[in-house]
């Protein structure tokens, strides 16, 4: 399973104005892994996600993707390296139909593999097929999340970044989404880097995990190790859903 390193984040510091949001973060994602990053609100998880995409840009440190330094690349160039993202808050195009949203995801290859890929997305999320002509903004939260992931998959990514896919969703839908991610990883070998507040679900899903506190990575290990770790349990799992 442990393949070559796909994404390598080294000593990354990101600032919002003068406020330091990330204090030298080191994270590695290897090919074929599902890596989860957990932490409380404001720990800097989403900032790290956005920093990978160059907005905001890392002030120090390097981000390497498949051997290429992408730290200073513009956002759209980074996306063209085949890193796809389902951003925080889903950010689907509300006035465009499900179909058009998926088309936008496939714009990198100018729809070359469109028909084939759209079928894959529909197999993964049959619900989207039912909603195909509906406008994105009229979908339910879970459907929007599915669309957001589906849109990201249309770009045929080597690495899929998911920012809080469980945000604001019912437990049953969260399970569906997590199952779909596991399925993608198992059958297609897709590498996934996942940011979650739902620590239990994310760590159960993940090969490895990182814990982030106040802009620092404080702990790392396999998903199972972290789940068993008393500190992690105390901070993120006790009193949570089991």
């Amino acid at each position, binding site marked *: 399973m442990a393949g070559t390193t796909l994404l390598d984040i080294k000593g990354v510091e990101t600032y919002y104005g003068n406020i330091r949001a990330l204090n030298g973060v080191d994270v590695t994602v290897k090919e074929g892994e599902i890596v989860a990053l957990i932490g409380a609100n404001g720990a800097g998880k989403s900032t790290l996600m956005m920093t990978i995409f160059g907005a905001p840009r890392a002030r120090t440190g390097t981000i390497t993707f498949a051997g290429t330094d992408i730290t200073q690349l513009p956002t759209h160039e980074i996306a063209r390296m085949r890193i796809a993202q389902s951003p925080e808050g889903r950010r689907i195009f509300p006035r465009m139909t499900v179909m058009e949203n998926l088309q936008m995801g496939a714009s*990198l290859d100018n729809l070359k593999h469109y028909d084939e890929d759209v079928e894959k997305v529909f197999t993964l999320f049959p619900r989207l097929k039912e*909603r195909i002509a509906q406008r994105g903004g009229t979908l339910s939260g879970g459907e929007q999340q599915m669309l957001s992931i589906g849109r990201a998959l249309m770009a045929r990514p080597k690495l899929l970044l998911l920012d809080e896919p469980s945000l604001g969703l019912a437990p049953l839908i969260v399970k569906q989404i997590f199952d779909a991610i596991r399925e993608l990883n198992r059958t297609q070998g897709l590498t996934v880097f996942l940011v979650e507040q739902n620590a239990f679900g994310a760590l159960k899903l993940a090969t490895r995990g990182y814990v982030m506190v106040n802009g620092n990575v404080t702990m790392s290990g396999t998903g199972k190790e972290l789940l068993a770790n008393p500190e992690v349990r105390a901070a993120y799992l006790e009193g949570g859903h089991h």
Partner: protein
Amino acid sequence: MAVTVSRESDSVATPTQRALKEAFYAGAIALGLFVLFIGLKTGQNMSNELVLTQRWGLLAAVVIATAVGRFLYVAYGQPFMANQKIANVATGLLPASVGSRFFTLPAFIVAVVAMVLLFVFNGSLAGWVGAEPAGYLQFLRALAVIYVLACVIYYFRAFIHANFTKLGITALVLYPILVVAVLSLNAWSIAGGLQGSLKWVDNFGIQILIYVMLAWGLNIVVGLAGLLDLGYVAFYALGAYAYALLATQYGLSFWILLPAAGCMAALWGVLLGFPVLRLRGDYLAIVTLAFGEIIRLVLINWREVTNGSAGISGIPKVSFFGLMTFNVSDPNYIAKVLHIATSSAYYKIFLYYLILGLCLLTAFVTIRLRRLPVGRAWEALREDEIACRSLGINTTTTKLTAFATGAMFGGFAGSFFAARQGFVSPESFVFLESAIILAIVVLGGMGSLVGIAVAAMVMIGGTEALRELDFLKQIFGPDFTPELYRMLLFGMAMVIVMLWKPRGFVGSREPTAFLKERRAVSSSFTKEGHG
């Protein structure tokens, strides 16, 4: 003027009681609002002193009209509308719609007869009944025409709705021919018909189509790409001055300068685009507004080139693709080549078809681009810029192409405008023009070509039509000039449309992508979840 009525009194009061109460409130509000607006009028007398004219009678009339209007609406209008929604217990049918009761065959026939008679005897009416009643009869004739047209539209509404685009284009293509034919019949001579058609083809046809083209051009920037541009008129000015200067100084033909003006405007669109790439919404609007003003001020102050506020005159006419001209003195003047009578109407009719062609080109390009990656990227950019970037779309080039394409059509329209007017001055390119074009786009529904065309027709045609309402002088006195009220009506129409249809005439966006096997089925015909 919604007046809230408490629940208890609502259940007890009859509509009439409630109406009386609401009419009183409405009157009171109108009094409060208009006591300074209408009741008092300030002016200057001969020795430049401020004088206050009191107009209590007019104020009373306005207040009473408001109160009576509110009373009628609450006492009769509301119950009537409520009844329309209740099915008859015995038959289970809804009452006949207002439309089918209002547009009946006998009334239609009466209206047609009245209209034809009044048109035929128009000339001799004043002699028979005197000037003042003749004015009222003209008013009646206008009403009859409106009623007949409304009847026709009402009876064919399903057909019109289904084939709106085709019908619209056919009507636009046939319009000058129909105008000339009808007016020739009316005047019993083709020369008279051509002469009479000038006003209809030029003031209505060409004028409206220029705005349709400008609004469709702006629609690419505002409606598709979602970049609020308040300085669009700058590109119109650039196109107009590009043609005016190059044609008068170097004698180049319109057919060379039309693309040149478009390219020049597009270049300026890119130049404007660069500094505003990071801006969105209100901030972008302010910068584009400033850009529009800068261009206008440059045109005023760069006297050596633009001749300042005096403008440039003697701009050459468009030729018929170099084969024929529209200058009477030229050896290849159209009438000489075709051996027909001399008339200035040929040029106007030619210009009409020219601008119609340019409009259709704009529409065609817009429709095609929406289906291409760049057009999809524009729409995605309007929806969510961050999501766009993370999907690998270069937002810089996407924005710049939107600005450039929109500006190019503005430039085309500008050079056409210069050729049509034969004269350009900075006065034609004030901020109000930008505002009107933007208003048309918003009223029509952002992104909808049909809606925008209808909005342009209503707004520009409507304000032009106000000039034609001479009979109103019979009612309001000879000092009444209806065109002075056109901005007021423009504003009122905008408020009403925005209340009634907040997303414009055509508010829904037509999707551009369908599954292969369902290409024919549009999402608007499928129920939610059944597409």
